[in-house]
């Protein structure tokens, strides 16, 4: 039974269903219950934006509030994962990975390999990503490229409520460490979501709009922008195919390459900074694998090479806009129409 719910609710539901199904699933993070040791209400927060609200009452003792010690508790989640638990650790903002990066980069990501295959680290690190929240440079980064770069990690970034639920369920069931990136400006975004549990396999992009003239590849919030751009383009009789990568590592090269082989044109949209980004990753791979199919230069539309500014007028220019995406697509696809 599907209802329209927000991405925030979808994430809460995924946690709820998996905690119910599997007693080894535990959740930890700062204020994810809230009010620990305080005189007032229990379950006072449910996380800084209320994503885990209500779970404490259902699963008492299985959601752990933590001190402000990300290395310690993210590391503890990782350690517990190697000992048979399936911890979901909330890092609040992915920007805070700076204070616990070692546990992700050098521990979780590498155990299996360093130990000759003899370890399994089924941990999920949930964190908010992205700009548009007027939260400035240290609370707005995308950072997906940093984690996608690291072998041993899986990186997920849903663009809507339906995917968020299915991908988080998969992340929890997955036997590898997963960085689960939640765009804070999508929390309120609603789609139809079935009430029951379902898992969306990793490494399967979704073609969210079909089109024959140009392939627009993105993930997260900018998928919504890409869809808007496609609408605009349609008015100019340019049919854009929009691909939502959904998972960045593993990434579904087949769907991307196949699409470009049919459209001959690629625009990659990435809210991350431009250098060594998902944008370069996709553009370069397509250039290498589907060179002969390309009828025009692949275009990258990204945030600028700058930190995220605070002032709303600047921040609104920071995230790739539907206009910028449409413009990049027109640039390479308008002659498709002329022909």
């Amino acid at each position, binding site marked *: 039974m599907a209802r329209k719910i927000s991405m925030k609710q979808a994430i809460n539901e995924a946690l709820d269903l998996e905690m119910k199904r599997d007693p080894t699933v535990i959740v930890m993070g*700062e*204020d994810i219950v*809230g*009010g*620990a*040791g*305080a*005189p*007032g*209400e229990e379950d*006072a*927060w449910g996380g*800084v934006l209320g994503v885990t609200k209500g779970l404490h009452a259902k699963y008492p003792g299985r959601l752990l*509030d*933590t*001190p*402000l*010690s*990300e*290395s*310690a508790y993210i590391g503890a989640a990782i350690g517990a994962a190697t000992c048979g638990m399936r911890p979901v650790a909330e890092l609040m903002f992915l*920007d*805070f990975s*700076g*204070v616990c990066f070692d546990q992700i980069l050098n521990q979780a990501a590498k155990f299996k390999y360093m130990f000759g295959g003899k370890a399994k680290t089924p941990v999920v690190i949930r964190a908010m990503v992205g700009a548009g*929240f*007027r*939260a*400035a*440079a*240290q*609370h707005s980064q995308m950072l997906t490229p940093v984690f996608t770069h690291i072998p041993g990690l899986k990186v997920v970034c849903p663009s809507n409520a339906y995917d968020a639920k299915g991908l988080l369920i998969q992340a929890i069931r997955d036997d590898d460490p997963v960085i689960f990136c939640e765009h804070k400006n999508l929390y309120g975004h609603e789609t139809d979501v079935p009430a029951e549990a379902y898992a969306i396999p990793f490494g399967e992009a979704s073609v969210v709009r079909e089109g024959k003239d140009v392939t627009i590849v993105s993930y997260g919030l900018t998928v919504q922008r890409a869809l808007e751009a496609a609408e605009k383009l349609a008015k100019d009789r340019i049919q854009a195919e929009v691909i939502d990568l959904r998972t960045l590592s593993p990434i579904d090269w087949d769907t991307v390459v196949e699409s470009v082989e049919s459209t001959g044109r690629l625009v990659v949209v990435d809210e991350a900074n431009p250098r060594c980004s998902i944008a370069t990753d996709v553009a370069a791979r397509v250039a290498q694998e589907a060179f002969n199919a390309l009828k025009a230069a692949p275009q990258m539309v990204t945030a*600028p*090479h*700058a*930190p995220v*500014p*605070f*002032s*709303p*007028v*600047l921040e609104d*220019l*920071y995230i790739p806009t539907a206009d910028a995406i449409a413009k990049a697509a027109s640039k390479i696809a308008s002659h498709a129409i002329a022909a």
Partner: protein
Amino acid sequence: MSKNPFPLSKDELLKAYRTMRTIREFEERLHVEFAKGDIPGFVHLYAGEEACATGIMMHLTDTDRIASTHRGHGHCIAKGVDVHEMMAEIYGKATGACRGKGGSMHIADLSKGMMGANGILGAGAPLACGAALASKFRGDKGVSVTFFGDGASNQGMVLESMNLAAVWNLPVIFVVENNGYAESTSVDYATAVDSYVDRASGFGLPGVTVDGADFFAVYEAAGEVIRRAREGGGPSLLECKMARFFGHFEGDAQTYKAKDENELNRANRDCIKMFADRVREAGVVTAAELGAIEKEVEALIDDAVAAAKNALPPTPRELTTDVYVSY
């Protein structure tokens, strides 16, 4: 008028009062303006904690440096950052201290020795160690102060820094602003030791705990640790216990607090009221003198808000400026 029993001159007392009132007025006003929806982003208010910033900063000059926190408005004002520039920054305007690019959590003014509010908890501690190291090398006698909350006190960067400061004998003061909460979590839950002085001992640092609502207690304790640091005696920890009058950030429903907690704190733990009562009762300062300052401060904040609202935002080209000195 009777003899001044305080360790500060009348002028200094008035200055302290002006600083504390400015902070309070700034924060109370932000609370109101935020509710109107005009202020973008997160705002963490310092109201209730004014005596801590002020009692410490009275000992510092522009050569001394501070590294602040997400709850940084009070530190900024006490360190002398321009109130108009701060307000404009919070509104995201080009006239702001950071040209609107930083916002509340990143206000800085290096010319005043204010190294920045910080959105990353605990990050100021290493930076303050660096500032103190620079002072040592330059021989400028500067002292650095790093502020962090009871929550951030459990962040590795803070803990490492205490040891580093002791090893290098740096002129740096670690100030724990213990307001009892980190977001909604009580210090009793999150910090496994009763006294931060004990924690400091574990890093070879002398420490002292004071009532952060008592301006004079803060002032005297800070004076001693800062003097010691300035004279080459090395780092110390100063714990100020106090109450935050508002929520963690604006919009926080504060259900984790006891029902009448805010009211009781306002009634019994208001550092400004306590200060005003004491200096008045001692007969050193008159109610009229305090009242004049209050008026002055109100006008200042009114003006700052009006100016901030009217100011222009940064121009689009500023999106990509200031990333590097040269590139």
